[in-house]
């Protein structure tokens, strides 16, 4: 055996040993995070599926396969389930377009050079960092049918009083009846209650939209604006022809994130209406909570949770696709 061969083997051996130690270091570093994620994220996902296959009415009962799912989708719980999904998406429609529109406009205004930018920003982000419970306690009073300031304002215009959070009537129906029109039930629109929660939600999340849009505006190359200015474009043209198109990935991003946020929203509804009146603000998360926590139906609640997760995952995947494409372009 030549000396060279020995040198090579010992070099591969040391390399192997180094690789081994590198691997060990990596696993050691990953261990804490993954141990916690395993126990509190991965296992529960399987438990949810396990529990959803049992009759579990306060106490664990008989195995019932997919019967909980059929109950939720087609059976005794179907009416409540589908209604809650429709309420959830109505809630999304009441909040997201407005959040995006307001957020975009304000971010655009804030992005330009001006005095007091910092103060405005601080102010606009403030609701977003305020806890939902505290903010909702304030809004509950602003919406108050008797003492609330909103009814006071309406009264000054000879309108109202409205019952806001306690009003199950559809808003289109209410507007219609104000003008003496009978709006049919199918076109009644979202309840004023849900609309009031949406108003709170827009106020609360406006700061978030502004942050995201400001970041997006920061990504648009300044040269584009300079070129436009040289061409003599008006501010409106700049906004329409440059800002808006270049910001569209951001808008999609905000759209998917906000949709997921609405699908998961719980706190504001729990505190403001608790799902009432007449279940008109019982979104899917509220329904799951009630099924689990107030009716003790753990099996059915888990089945609903799994179904809701699937809906959310669909939106998450869409969001990732958008991001993926964006990165490829970038």
């Amino acid at each position, binding site marked *: 055996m030549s000396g060279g061969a020995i040198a090579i083997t010992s070099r591969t051996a040391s390399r192997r040993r180094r690789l081994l130690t590198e691997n060990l270091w*990596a696993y050691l570093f990953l261990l*804490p995070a993954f141990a916690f994620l395993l126990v509190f994220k991965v296992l529960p996902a399987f438990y949810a599926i396990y529990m959803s296959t049992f009759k579990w009415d306060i106490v664990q009962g008989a195995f019932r396969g997919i019967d909980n799912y059929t109950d939720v989708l087609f059976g005794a719980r179907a009416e409540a389930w589908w209604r809650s999904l429709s309420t959830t998406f109505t809630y999304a429609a009441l909040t997201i377009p407005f959040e995006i529109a307001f957020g975009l406009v*304000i971010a655009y205004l804030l992005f*330009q050079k001006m005095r007091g930018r910092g103060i405005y920003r601080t102010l606009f982000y403030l609701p*977003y960092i305020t*806890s939902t419970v505290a*903010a909702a306690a304030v809004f509950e009073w602003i919406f108050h049918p008797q003492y609330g300031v909103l009814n006071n304002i309406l009264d000054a215009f000879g309108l109202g009083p409205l019952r806001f959070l306690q009003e199950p009537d559809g808003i289109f129906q209410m507007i219609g009846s104000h003008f003496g029109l009978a709006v049919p039930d199918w076109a009644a629109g979202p309840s004023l209650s849900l609309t009031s929660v949406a108003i709170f939600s827009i106020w609360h999340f406006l700061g978030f939209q502004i942050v995201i849009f400001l*970041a997006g505006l920061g990504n648009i190359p300044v040269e584009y604006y300079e070129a436009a200015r040289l061409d003599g474009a008006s501010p409106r043209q700049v906004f329409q022809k440059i800002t808006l198109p270049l910001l569209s990935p951001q808008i999609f*991003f905000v759209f998917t994130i906000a949709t997921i946020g609405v699908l998961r929203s719980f706190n504001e509804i729990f505190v403001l209406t608790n799902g009432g009146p007449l279940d008109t603000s019982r979104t899917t998360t509220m329904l799951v909570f009630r099924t689990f926590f107030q009716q003790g139906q753990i099996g059915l609640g888990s089945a609903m949770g799994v179904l809701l997760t699937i809906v959310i995952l669909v939106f998450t995947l869409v969001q990732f696709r958008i991001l993926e494409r964006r990165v490829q372009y970038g």
Partner: protein
Amino acid sequence: MNVPNAIPRVATGVVRRPPLPRASSSIVRHAILIAVGGVVAYPFYFMLSSSLKPFFEAIQVPPTIFPHELHPENYAEAWNKAPWARYFANTFLVASLITIGELVTAVLAAYAFARIGFKGKAILFTVLLATYMMPGEATLIPNYVMMSKPIPGQSAFFPILRLGLYDTYQAQILPFIASAVSIFLLRQQFLSVPNELHDAAVIDGAGHLRFLWSVVLPISVPALVTVAILSFYGSWNAFQWPLIITSNPDIRPVQVALNAFRAEAGTSYHLLMAAAAFVVAPIVLIYLVGQRYLVQGVARTGIRG
């Protein structure tokens, strides 16, 4: 694997670019911003002004814009109606421990993903991504059941792991110790540490721990602060989980306590507003001090709260 990169990179350009030159009339702009700002600020003003009114003025119709009589003692009354000091201490303890734990787990994991080559990296990263996509709703009920005591005569591990931690501090803390988002965020930061620094450290004979401790962490302070603030902020405002997992007021956090106080205060809205004000105050302070980090964190992670 474009996707992981995409998460923290959603919007990296926070406040980096110079602001645009003026595009619209300054007066119009200020008018819009002040109008919207007034609507945004009104609830805060309302909270503060009502918290200073006496009971009968607080429920007066129409509401007085400025309190006729100032009653700062409302704050003392609200404070004394419940053991708020204890609630604040609870929240502070829980939020601090979560923040520390999250920093530790995220720093280590992010370092491994960013700077060490190892077998199974892609798979583990995918797992991490999957946990990131798994919404809390999927795990709410099973996590609750997991916190329950083992049923006598049944295994504590199978079919469901039962930790017996219902109504403890641990139950409020442990589920949040590891967060995929924080790992992504720090990994991005650690990737940007120049390789030359690493090479130099290796020549000095430094191992991973020393390199991480003495080189990577010191130059990553802004990212660490961002993660810490986001984590602290999230735990301070946490509501749903502590609401269902605690029943003993001795370990109750402020948000749950404030929700309970709504019933306790009854029609004493002025006291409720005072309580809301002091519950909001600490996080507003942190926000005013660390605004930059918080905003950057939100922009980079897209956490909607």
